[in-house]
Structures are given as structure tokens and as C-alpha cells.
């Protein structure tokens, strides 16, 4: 019986770590974005994507709400909002 534990990345869905957020979630204002990509670079999850100005978004399935993207944004174009606020995202 041969069965080592190995996983191919294509078969890994990842844990839905977005459920970890309890208080705040990042919200893109899409006003002053200069597409510097700092938010994409600093996200510990790697769940930010986008190329054009004011067109970045993130995957709330995985975002843990750490707030690093909002902290690093040089244009203050990401704000941390209450998890309950139900504001329309991306």
C-alpha cells in the first residue's frame, strides 16, 4: 500500500480564511488610485488583484482583514470599514 501525503497546487482550494474577519474589512474607494501596486505587493494572503488605476480588488473569500493594504496605500484610497456595514465592494 503506497500512500505518501503529497498535494499538487492545482488540487488545493485553500482554507476560506475570509471567515476570520470579525471587525473590519478593507474597502477600495477607487478615487485616487495610481496603480502603484503596493496593496497587491504587501497583502500577506496574495488575494489582491488588478492592473489599472482604480480597478484593484480583493478576494473576500480569503482576506483576513489585517489592514496592511490600507496602511501601505500612499493615496489613502483603501479604508477599513466595519464588517457589518455591508457596503458594496469592488
Amino acid at each position: 500500500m503506497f500512500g505518501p501525503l503529497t498535494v499538487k497546487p492545482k488540487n488545493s482550494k485553500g482554507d476560506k480564511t475570509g471567515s476570520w474577519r470579525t471587525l473590519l474589512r478593507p474597502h477600495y474607494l477607487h478615487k485616487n488610485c495610481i496603480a502603484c501596486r503596493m496593496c497587491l505587493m504587501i497583502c500577506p494572503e496574495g488575494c489582491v488583484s488588478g492592473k489599472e488605476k482604480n480597478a484593484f480588488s480583493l478576494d473576500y473569500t480569503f482576506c483576513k482583514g489585517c489592514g496592511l493594504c490600507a496602511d501601505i496605500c500612499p493615496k489613502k484610497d483603501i479604508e477599513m470599514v466595519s464588517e457589518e456595514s455591508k457596503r458594496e465592494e469592488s
Partner: protein
Amino acid sequence: MKEFLEGSHAIAEVIKSCQPGVISAYPITPQTHIVEDLAQMVSSGELKSQFVNVESEHSAASVVLGSSATGVRVYTATSSQGLFLMQEVVFNIAGMRLPVVMTCANRAVSAPINIWNDQQDSISLRDAGWIQIYAENNQEAVDFHLIAYRLAEDKRVMLPVMVCMDGFILTHGMETVDMPEQDKVNKFLPAYKPLYKLDTADPMSMGLLADPDYYMETRFALQETMRESIGYLSEISKEFNNVFGRDYKDLLVEEYQLKDAEKVIVAMGSVCGTIKEVVDEQRAKGKKVGLLRIISYRPFPYARVYEALKDVSKVAVLDKSVSLGAYAPIAVEVKSTFFGKKKSPKVISSFVAGLGGRDITAETIHEVFRRLSAKEVNFEFIDLKPELLKEEYGE
């Protein structure tokens, strides 16, 4: 082709014929001659392997782990303390199902430090998930390495194999060995084709964390493969005989003069050569004695041992290692073979001899047969020096 060779050199030659991609080892007596010879072969260009000179046995085992995971055939060798330093990696290699082949030049363990032969080192790693086969002489040691690669890399097995050979007695002993020809090796041992590997063309993660939901099945799979390997050993032995004309039967045990035997010694490794001589001598005098040699210690061939000994009246298990505070390691297996069985020897006595290189002579074996009486004994050390016990330990 028959050659008169030192055991270590013969091993280096057969490893060369197996063409491992990576060899890594750290020097320890009595393993050194093997890896010195391999280093020389790599240096001269006759062996196209990467030879990684590491800073410890822990790293030697880790290097071959990494290389094996990258999909190449690997080799390492060690002994005694070196094997113990490797221990953590040894378990890891088996758990990751990597077909590493290692020579263990069997040697006593510290303290006190002692470079001479017994089998305490590899015996102590019996639970690691490595197949362990023990050679009686250098012909076997050579042949068992070929069989080890074939077995380890078998897609049904994918377990590491440790070929155990008694330090100095075999590693430094000169014997005539029929060295396997390269074309026959190529026939018997095809190039290694890994089932899975670290490859940027098809990324994969190995060595993951398994929580209680997943861990236990990995250990079950190891145990199952061990059990199944009993059959694979016999199968590969047959193929070996077809190619090389040397018959190791089922590769689990060797029965020597067991027919009608009343007193039988069970032992493992080079000491069996001496035991065979004594058996012949006593048989010539009409005594019904015999030898059951264990070749595969892991997996342990319980069914074969049962068949071989079930009609024998008295069995002496001769261990060259101890499990301090318990019955000796091989004795434990032999005794448990017969628990609750219909047929069983009347006596299974356990003797320990040859620790730290103390010679096991013909007289030692005669003494074992003499002590093998109707009264079962355990923990009996043979060839102790009473005067030393008195002087040093006040006995």
C-alpha cells in the same frame, strides 16, 4: 566474475554498478572504506555521481532525502552513532516513502565507545519503516544491495532499504565474491523512474502536516507495505536467481539442517557462518542440531519462522544486541511467533553474545547448545568474564 576483495570495496563496486545519481555520507568507522572507494570512483570519473561531502550524518541522510525527492537514485552508508544521529531523518525518509538505500556497517553503540561489531545500531531503528536485510557474507552483502534498490524502487513498495553487514567482520574481511556483471545489473535493475518528484514542470508539495484526521492512515499504509513486502522479497529473489544464478530462496530466512532437528539456534548476520560449522560438526557426531538464519528482520517473517520451528523441541535465539530491560530483540519476535499457536517449541531460550566485538567462536556456539536445555532461560549473556565482573563490579 570472481574476485578476491575486501567487503567494503566489493560494496563500493556494486554501488557503482547501480549508478546512483547522488551519494552522500559522513565518515565513521567501520563504514569509511566504502565511501572512500566511492569518492575515488567519482574522482576518477568512472562513476558519474554527485558525491556530497557533508558535515554530519544528519545532513548525509538529509541530502539523500532531498536528492531522492528530486527523482534520482541515491546511496548513503553509516554505522553506530552515525545511524543514531541520522535517526530523525531515517524515520522521515520512510514516512515520505523515498526509496533510499543505505548500508549499515553494524557496530556497537556508546557508551562506552566501541568501534567493533554487534547489531545494536540497526536493531535500535527497527521501528523506523525501513526494510532491514542482514548479510551473512560478502557475496550476500553485494547481492543484497542490488536487491535493495530493486525492492525499494518497486512501485508497490517505495520504502527505504537498509542492508546490514557486520562491521569489520564483513566490511574489512577479504573474501572471494562473484561480482555482478554490468549487463546483468542493467537487466535486473532498470533505471529509476520516480512515481513523484520535485519538478518545476509539475509542481508538488511534499512533507505536509497531517493532523489527526490524516496521520494514522499514513502509518497504516507503511505497515501494510511492510506486510506485503514479505511476498515481494521472494518474488525479487526469484528474478535475481534468474539473472545471476544465485538462489536466496524467499530472502526471509535460511533453513540450515532443520529437518529432524531437535535443537536449533536462531541468529542473524555473519555469526551464522560459525554456527553452520558447529552444526556440521555436531551433526557429524549424530546430534540433531540446526540453524534458522533470519535474513529479513523488517518485515519480520513470522509465518516462515513458525513453519521452520513449529516441530523443533528446543530453540536458542542468539542476539547480538539487547533491548535493555526487556527480552532480546530477535528473541521477542521468535517468542511472539508462537504465542497462542497449536504447535510450538517446548523451550525458546534467549542468549546474548558478541557485544562490542567480543568474538563469537565455535566454542561460544557449543556453549549455547549446551545451555539449551529443558529449562528455558532469558537474558543469558554468553562469554562474560567473571573475573572482570568481580573486579570492576563487585559481583
